[in-house]
């Protein structure tokens, strides 16, 4: 019985690690897709300041994510999803799009990826 419970716990941990791995893979794939999509664009011409005029020019789905990130100052995709009530994977995709557009920065700390507009001094 004890052995069964122990192996069940191990299996849960392995599944959890696989899920985290898949999440990270998913984020990287989003980045690759976005790089391909924006490959032809002249990056020099893209403004990298996330001010209100930029927010107004963003498509609705990205604006919601960007405004939420501005409110939170810095956040993980999970924290943004908690505010927007959208799925974590969706927010992760949108945040990575904003990173590619140059409006948001991303920093990995341990297993978590943090997104921010500007680092606190």
């Amino acid at each position, binding site marked *: 019985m004890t052995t069964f419970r122990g192996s069940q716990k191990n299996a849960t941990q392995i599944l959890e690690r696989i899920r985290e791995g898949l999440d990270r893979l998913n984020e990287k794939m989003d980045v690759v897709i976005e790089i391909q999509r924006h490959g032809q664009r002249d990056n020099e011409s893209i403004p990298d300041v996330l*001010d*209100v005029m930029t927010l*107004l020019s963003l498509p609705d789905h990205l604006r919601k994510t960007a*405004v939420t990130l*501005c409110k939170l100052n810095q956040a993980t995709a999970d924290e943004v999803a908690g505010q927007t009530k959208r799925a974590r994977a969706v927010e992760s995709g949108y945040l990575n799009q904003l990173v590619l557009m140059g409006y948001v920065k991303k920093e990995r700390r341990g297993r978590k990826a943090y997104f921010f507009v500007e680092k606190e001094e």
Partner: protein
Amino acid sequence: MGSIIAFHSYKGGTGKTLLSVNLASTYARKGRNICLFDLDFRAPSLHAAFKAEGNGYWLNDYLNGTCDIKKVLVELNTFHTGSGRLFVGLANPATEAIREMSAKDRKWEMRALGRLLSLKTALFNDMHLDHIIFDTSPGLQYSSINAIVSADMAIVVSSLDASDIKGTQRMTRELYDLFEKKTGIILNKIPAGHLATPDKKEKLLKELKAIHNLPIIDVIPCFCKVLEAGGTYIFAVERPEHPFTAILNEVATTIEEGRAYIEAGFQYVCDIQGAQLFKKRK
């Protein structure tokens, strides 16, 4: 937690400052703790409205990141406030400061937005405030859009001027809706002829509701006495018997009731025979 209410308008001179100053005083006299911010950096006016001296720190300094927000706040005496507390955050009226604020770049405006957004945590948690009121600059300027994005609710003050109505419609579509802002309209300075009979008032309201598709918080006639006062004193404080003060009391109640409905998960649908209809949000 309390709410941030931004007074905004398409055109200047619609009465944003008059209404925000008098509403802040009305709330304070009802026992609420209020903080009123002058976010019109190109034409600061709260220092004159309250005859308040700056304390050496201005909202400009807070947005520049050179001081804490609490250093900026000036608490007004009980004459203005009754049982509540009323703080004001003044914009620097010096010409040099106005010129400096007009020349800020986009990066500064982005940081200013961040600082306005962080006001909520900084003030509501520590100071037990009920409302923060932003008096903004008219139109689509950085300072006013920053204020709208940071606020929980936008109150648009509009007159019956045709360009004001068109501009308000456009701002609803292109600003408040895009930021999913709860918005209400106060119609101000309405000529007495439009409100002479209940039928005329009803007709006017029906027309404007059809145009704006937003809740109309109240309709304020053009009062000669208010214009005569010329902002030299706080009308709602010194003339409690005047109909203007009675309307502001109604406005104060309507805003709090509307907010209570929204917090309970309802959203405004339309007006039916003078009553606002809300539906449960999905």
